């Protein structure tokens, strides 16, 4: 059980599973589209009604299925279409991120951010940033050498 930190090859093509909510961040993503703001194709979207639908198990499953990163997006605090869904998401993911850290997942691989329907530019910026960050890390999960699966 050697525990040395070794950076193997870097990941030129990381996968990011992007969770969108239907009301704010999903519309923000659409706005990035209508504004023709470019971001990397590595970002793979999946839309749910509310970010609070996302089970922490889904996040871990995404990593197990080969995601190099998971990005959860939702409405800004106070704007949630379902009143308080995003607060719930935030709390759940706060504890999940501590757990991920404990099992050695680099915090750069898991982000949660709020994007309003008007923040197309922010959407493009955050997704681009996340992909760039992941390119500086080795591949994760079954595509790479890290991870057990």
């Amino acid at each position, binding site marked *: 059980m050697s525990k040395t930190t070794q950076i193997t090859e870097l990941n030129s093509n990381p996968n990011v599973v992007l969770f969108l909510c239907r009301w704010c961040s999903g519309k923000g993503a*659409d706005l990035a589209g*209508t504004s*023709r703001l470019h971001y990397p*194709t590595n970002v*793979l979207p999946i839309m749910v009604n509310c970010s609070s639908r996302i089970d922490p198990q889904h996040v871990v499953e*995404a990593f197990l*299925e080969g995601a190099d990163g998971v990005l959860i997006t939702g409405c800004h605090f106070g704007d949630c279409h*379902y009143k*308080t869904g995003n607060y*719930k998401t935030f709390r759940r993911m706060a504890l999940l991120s501590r757990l991920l850290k404990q099992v050695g997942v680099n915090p750069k691989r898991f982000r949660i951010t709020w994007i309003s329907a008007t923040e197309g530019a922010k959407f493009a910026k955050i997704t681009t940033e996340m992909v760039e960050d992941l390119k500086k890390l080795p591949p994760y999960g079954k595509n790479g050498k890290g991870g057990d699966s």
Partner: protein
Amino acid sequence: MSKVGVFVCHCGRNIAHTVDIKKVLESIKDYEDVVHVEDSMYMCSEPGQTIIKEAIKKHDLDRVVVAACSKDMHEDTFRIVTKEAGLNQYLTEMANIREQCSWVHENKEKATEKTIKIIESTIEKVKRNQALEPYNVPVTRKALVIGGGIAGIQAALDIADAGYQVTLVEKDSTIGGKMAQLAETFPTLDCSQCILTPKMVAVGRHPNIQLLTNSEVENVDGYVGSFKVKIKKKPRYVIEEKCTICDDCVHVCPVIVHDEYNAGLSPRKAIYIAFPQAVPASYIIDPSTCLGIDPLICAKCKEVCDPKAIDFDMKAEFIEEEFGAIVVATGYSVYPYERIGEYGYGNIHNVVSGLEFERLLSANGPTQGVIRRPSDGNIPKIVVFIHCAGSRDPAKHLPYCSKICCMYATKHAMQYKHLVHDGVAINFYIDVRTAGKDYEEFYKRAAEEENVIYIRGKVSELLQDGEKVLIRGVNTLTSESIELHADMVVLATGLLPSEGTQEISNILKLSCDSKGFVKEAHPKLKPVETVISGVFVAGTASGPKDIPEAVAQASGAAAKAETILSSDFLERDPVIAEIDDLTCGICHTCIHVCPYGAIYYDENQNKVLVNEALCEGCGSCAAACPSGSIELRNSTYESISASIKALLRV
């Protein structure tokens, strides 16, 4: 085994420009369960829709994926197409390959790959979708309006005029609210009573309005379309129908207390009518001070009452009724100047609140419209009006602007000048905020034509100095400190949510903002809706407002309520949560997680149940359920997992 049909749109060149549609079709046609793939230049066009309809029939498709634009654009379109082809509309899903793919990428090869993944992920979702039918929730075609101020009156009249039954519940003995206490209204200086009382009378007479004064909403259950409401009608001890408002009882009543209608500036008896134009026109006994109600010490009023309208044994009545929609118009209360230490905690005799000054100005007020100061009844020659008393002061008082105070302080100063021609009116202000129709002109008129003096500055302190009030402050334009004596000071105090607003928010489970005002469902686009479907808000319950705004909002709320009442059934989205009793351990987690109170424990069945009419389908409970017993229809755990897996398929 599903039979999935996938329809890929070119969207002219919008998608086809960056996505190799041919390659997409080639790849998708071999995907598990896909039996038909087809493309179209414009899938949303008539020919495009026909392609889908015919393919559903020809290939006996049981699931449809339309890979095109955003759900917001065309989900409804394609659901209708599916339905028209005889397939349940919930068995169609859209894959967004335009906004979230072709428009944001340049590399055709990679965008094509991503398109394929998005479509495959959508196929996995739609395969797990169930056929669903929208719910029909029956509607009780009756509205409840809570609060009988101008907003509640307007809402009740509008709904009643539209032909629906309305119950108007008012806590006090009469409707009219704060507006009935005002002398004149800015910027036109109409007499408040003159424009309000006809509406009050109309409420009292309207065949569609059931008026319950001296009543409070005790409990509300149910949901949009059928709210079950319990109303407590407190005993009035005077039989409304018999009372002829002759006032014989008042003369004999030995109990004298402060008159709330006159802001405590005059006395009233324990048996009283709030003001002569009150609706309903009937006396009422104040049980907390009357000597006739348990124990019976005095019955003088009863003895003199000719029509035998007085009944000391009257008990509270409970009325339980169903309503389809609710309008909350519970109003505001005035920021108590007792909380303002720098202005003497209400202990300086000739410092009065705006509402007290209204009563002094009012022709039916304690001084019959002659301005007399409370200490000695003399007519004040110098009156100082302090704006933002208790407002815009996050350190000590209310952080927000109460919106109407600049205007009413200006109105007060002007009315004072009208009544006391040689008097001096001085207004201390932070900014004069006159954002309203003709408001700026009104302010200009006060300052330029009526010689009202405006000093930009904050009064830091008020002190009793002999007969006078000493005002210490600063002129922030000249940076000079100011000390002056006035005969009287009027505080333009801010607005607070009323107690009733707070109570009703709890009963109805409405969200409130940090100040305690009812939160709108959306601050811009849903200004009369609340977070509870079927409950609307009007007037100052949702924040400080002037009369025209309150009235406009009331009509808006009424129109929204009428929309609900206009049909026998409401259609509800069937994408809601479901609980599996076989594994549910009744841990109650979901009950508090649900932002709508849609999940509840049923003791008789010993089960946790979802109220279909309340569930909005966020799925938060499903993510929280520690035994995995809750699923959101068509967005199940498994469905999301499968979509994730498809996205990441190498």
